[in-house]
């Protein structure tokens, strides 16, 4: 493995973590949008706030990580993607602004406008992963030329990019539903657990349909990736993804929390690495390889070093945050200035 390959793997680790954690945040926004009004809507939004409130900002730093590693280690690929797919990327950036501020604002805003902030958060949570999906679909279908300046509209409006966009939204909603099933189950709210479990099942079917359509589209528009996914080692990861997905469904129906998140996340992770294996050695299939896109060699080494430092510093901190959040050591955001005594 060359240093460029290691950097590509680091990039892909970032993509994976963003897909899981950022994806779950987007998905939570989807359920927030569909929660409706009334008592039920309130309790759904309440659970969403408790689940993602403390962690959403940290989750989205992975996106910055991905962008920075991409432009530092693979500047040519970064520039090619940016000059071709600037429309969906700009729309995704807009979505990020709207959902971040919508979510942050809605806790602090007075009643009447809270609804508006919530809707902005919800709609942007659907659009952002959709446009990110079209970007990935466009890259997979080989519509991004190595020199950049590809077709700014046709590149991402084909069947494969659009299906990928839909798949991203569905998978995000699914991941979020699974996390929310676990969190509401852990909070002892069986009602809410059933609510999210039903939705997880429905969206699992939707994601399955989108995935099948995606495979058909890959066969048509991204033969290289299709071949990679249907031969070793890609096929092994596809099979693993399928097994995990089925296991998650079984656990969901059987009303079991244990292993549910691992299975659901495993399905996504296996798929993401399946793509990586299928696309290898390309970063832009089939126009630019990882080694051709790689930047100066000293920089690649430095990216690996920085990643090592990040792993030592950031990962334990993140785990601390997730553990505190999961153990309810962190409370819901309150605008009140009153300090209450801690649990004794």
């Amino acid at each position, binding site marked *: 493995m060359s240093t460029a390959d290691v950097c590509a793997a680091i990039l892909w680790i970032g993509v994976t973590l963003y897909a899981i954690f950022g994806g779950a945040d987007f998905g939570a926004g989807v359920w927030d949008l569909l929660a409706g009004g009334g008592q039920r809507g309130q309790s759904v939004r309440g659970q969403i706030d408790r689940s993602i409130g403390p962690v959403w900002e940290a989750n989205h730093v992975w996106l910055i990580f991905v962008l920075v590693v991409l432009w530092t280690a693979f500047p040519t690929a*970064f520039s090619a993607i940016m000059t071709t797919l600037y429309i969906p990327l700009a729309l995704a950036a807009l979505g990020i602004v709207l959902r971040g501020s919508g979510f*942050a604002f809605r806790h602090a805003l007075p009643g009447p406008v809270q609804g508006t902030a919530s809707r902005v958060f919800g709609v942007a949570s659907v659009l952002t992963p959709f446009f990110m999906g079209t970007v990935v679909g466009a890259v997979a279908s080989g519509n991004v030329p190595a020199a950049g300046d590809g077709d700014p509209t046709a590149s991402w409006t084909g069947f494969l990019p659009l299906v990928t966009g839909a798949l991203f939204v569905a998978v995000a909603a699914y991941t979020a539903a699974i996390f929310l099933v676990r969190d509401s189950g852990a909070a002892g709210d069986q009602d809410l657990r059933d609510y999210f479990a039903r939705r997880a099942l429905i969206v699992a079917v939707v994601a399955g349909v989108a995935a099948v359509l995606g495979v058909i589209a890959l066969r048509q528009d991204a033969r290289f990736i299709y071949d990679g996914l249907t031969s070793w080692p890609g096929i092994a990861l596809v099979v693993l993804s399928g097994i995990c997905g089925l296991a998650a469904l079984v656990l969901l129906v059987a009303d079991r929390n244990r292993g549910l998140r691992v299975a659901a996340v495993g399905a996504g992770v296996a798929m993401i690495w399946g793509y990586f294996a299928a696309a290898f050695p390309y970063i832009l299939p089939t126009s630019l390889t990882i080694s051709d896109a790689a930047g*100066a060699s000293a920089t690649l080494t430095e990216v690996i070093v*920085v990643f090592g430092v990040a792993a030592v510093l950031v990962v334990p901190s993140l785990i601390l945050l997730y553990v505190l959040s999961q153990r309810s050591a962190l409370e*819901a955001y309150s605008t009140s*200035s009153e*300090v*209450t*005594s801690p649990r004794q």
Partner: protein
Amino acid sequence: MSSPALLLADSSSNLLAARNQMGFTLGFHIVLACFGVAFPAMMLIAEWRGRKRNDEAALRLARNWSKAVAVLFAVGAVTGTVLSFEFGLLWPRFMDRFGDAFGIAFAIEGIFFFLEAIFIAIYIYGWNRLSPRAHMWAAVPIVISGVGGAFSVIAANAWMNQPQGFKLDASGHVTDVKPLDVLFNNATGYEFFHMLLAAYMVTGFILASIYAVGMLRGRRDAYHRAGLLIPLTVAAIASPIQLFVGDTAARAIADDQPSKFAGMECIYKGGTDQTEWLGGICTDGKVKGGIGVPGLDSLLVGFSTGTNVTGLNQIPADQQPPALTMLHLSFDTMVGVGTLLFLLAVWFAIAWWRKRDLPETKWFLRAVAVSGVAAVVALEAGWIVTEVGRQPWILYKIMRTSEAVTPAQGIWWVFAFTMLLYIALFTTAALIIRALARRWRAEDLREPPTDVPYAPPREEEATA
């Protein structure tokens, strides 16, 4: 169909649109970044004071500030994400050629940003559930990452002003990158300290000004006094150091980037015994309407009127910075406002030294009340000097901004839309913070809440 002239007009319009877009979004983000860097430190000082001296007002202040930090950090995080997109969306040619040369600065910044986001969440959401000691410790990584993040981003900007730590091969590709030389380039030292102090001054003066307005409206309680005292003390300590650092920076720029220096001082004709112009319009090769002090510019640059200062006449026309009047007035505004803020700090220090107390005279409070806006004006003016002064280069003397810009169309529309969106963001964030303040005041009137202790009990009590 398109004639070369039309193409040229198109690309230059694109360049202006892209520069406006980048300038506007950066100018917006820089204020939030200041809060991200310095606000947590003030919050920690307030909590520490509150716990150590059993000062209820300070503790309440820390808690309320953390709510504002949450909102400001969220808006800062998303506007910062926009900037990472914009590097590629607006300046793809620059990133293509030099992403691997200076990207490492942003990778390091990523680590700090990560830590900051994580510990801000722990701090904000942990007020009631963590022990006081654990809670205060959670703020320490936030303060450190604020400084580290500022360092990395400013190192990247300094590198654009003083590119070094790499070589270019025959085809213009970057080779032999030396990351440490990139990070610690000629300009990093002065740019970093200048910006760090600016962040503490902007945050300190803005916060102090909010409570000064409250005190002018008659709310002269312990809460408002602490809200004014803590940030103003921090800003007042930073002010004199900033004067020194800023002066050093200006002298260094005269050496490092003579074109920027000539532009910001409006020096048309190079030579010794340079006049220092305060204000004025730079036009037709001379300064109109400004106050000229003969020889002072040379004296400031080299401690002697005999110091030779480069003028615009020694710089090729196509390498001179644009918008000279704006550049010059921005520089004067930054220096002028910075000096006034320093005088306010002196006023505060003398009053404190004589009475050991916060001066509560109307005129002092009025001065503090305007200091926040003034500090932001100085910040923006300084940012204009750095960025416009570097033009026409995106990478000083190596790559022109016009070579870096995207050919994508429609940036003017994006710019117009972004302005509206950011204005809406700003307005909402400001309204929220005002609404929060009102709610806190309403809660304050219900005092004293005898059943609710302000502070979580001390550890020995909690375990008892």
